[in-house]
């Protein structure tokens, strides 16, 4: 699924311009990282693409148009329903979409299997580690087989080792499924490691300071973390943020 933004503007409280006329195209199958300082409008941009917030002017189009429930959203924290076990949490989107119990359980099991949680189906969120909770959240997003996956700093609250594991897992999932991914993050290293393309937003008004195709190998694993090419991309992104 491709996303096209034309002169998108978003203002808070009639005074604070968060995004002032953004033009951006994200092609089908791209893995785009959106970087920028706090308050620059990254999360607002993601919410508008998900149709959870309306732009004040301009237009956001998805291609192909009009397909329902093709977008999934992963939040900063896992935000699971604590009274449901892992299987029922992962199956929630399908339940809301009206799928039968048997069908949604089958799909939720498959999604949980993909994130390595096949043996925790009957556990409750309170019994899981932070990393496992985030995996359930990822499975919940993948269960509808979305064509557009939006992630709003999903691994920010996790420890570094867990984050490294989830980065690799997310990248593999993207390669296997071929969906479009928009990943908002504060972390330059995470953006460079994960994405094929990175956009850096300015501190105010959401202007695009850098739009770059990252020149890195397609297969990303932990060995790449010591690669000088990754370091070079990180320096470029950091330079654009601090500019």
């Amino acid at each position, binding site marked *: 699924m491709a996303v096209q933004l034309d002169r998108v503007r978003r203002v808070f409280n009639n005074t604070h311009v968060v995004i002032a006329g953004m033009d951006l195209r994200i092609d089908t199958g791209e893995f785009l990282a959106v970087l920028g300082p706090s308050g620059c409008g990254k999360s607002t941009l993601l919410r508008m693409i998900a149709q959870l917030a309306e732009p004040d002017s301009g237009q956001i189009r998805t291609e192909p148009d009009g397909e*329902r429930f093709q977008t999934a959203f992963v939040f*900063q924290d896992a*935000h699971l*329903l*604590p009274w449901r076990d892992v299987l029922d949490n992962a199956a929630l989107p399908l339940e*809301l*979409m009206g799928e039968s119990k048997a069908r949604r359980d089958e799909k939720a099991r498959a999604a949980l299997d993909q994130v390595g949680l096949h043996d925790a189906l009957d556990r409750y969120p*309170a019994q899981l580690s932070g990393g496992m909770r985030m995996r359930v959240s990822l499975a919940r997003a993948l269960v*509808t087989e979305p064509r557009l996956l939006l992630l709003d700093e999903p691994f920010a609250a996790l420890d570094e080792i867990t984050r490294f594991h989830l980065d690799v897992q997310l990248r593999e999932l993207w390669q296997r499924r071929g969906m479009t991914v928009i990943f908002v993050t504060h972390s330059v290293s995470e953006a460079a490691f994960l994405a094929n393309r990175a956009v850096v937003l300015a501190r105010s008004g959401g202007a695009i300071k850098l739009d770059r195709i990252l020149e890195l190998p397609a297969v990303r694993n932990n060995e790449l973390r010591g690669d000088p090419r990754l370091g070079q991309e990180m320096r470029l992104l950091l330079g654009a943020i601090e500019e």
Partner: protein
Amino acid sequence: MKKTLLPPLIPFAVLTLLAEFLVRQGFVRAYLVPAPSAVFRAMLDSRVELVQALLSTSAGSLAGFAMSALTGIAAAVLLSSSRGVQRAFYPYAIFFQTVPLIAVAPLLVIWFGFGIQTVIASAFVASVFPVIANTLSGILSTDPPLRDLFRLYGASPLVTLFKLRLPAALPQVFTGLRVSAGLAVIGAIVGEFIGGGGLGSVVDVARTQQRIDKVFAAVLLASLLGLALFGLINLLSHLTLRRWHASEQPD
């Protein structure tokens, strides 16, 4: 069970022994505070009357409490439907908290007549507000990202209410019910003072007969009834929340 019951029983035993000692030694006048042994004796002597009164007060309290629980939750759901509805009707819900029950009780007798109806109405008026306030607060503080998630997958307001907002509000609903349980017993006793019957009447009559031991016996039974209701809500809360809410999980 041992761990839950033992700590409160120790101060109870100590205070009972102390009261017995102070009254027997004449430090406290028996017509002001009776010896615990005298209260126990009064309980035994009037056991048939007290048990009947306890059953009557229990029925009034439980019925008033059940009405408060159902009406309170329903009212909170309605109030949560829009800010406009909240602004228009929430002040009337606060009325139930601020109304001086003892002054309104005679009105209840005029409206509902002498008997259990007045007791139930009084228990209801005393106990409905905590259920409304806590349930409403729980419904309104649903996690915003979860609300977004439900919107993203096209959930209707009714589906969001039953699958997200009400379950998320359950810990606060139980907090409201705990407060409400004690208030329902107080409301029932006040209703019985005016409307007749139950432990409220026993207290009223024993007071006029200077039977302070019997007054204490009836008050003790009313307190035990409040404790039993509180315990029942705690048990329900534990069974419902034990798997997922920190308040019901071991330290």
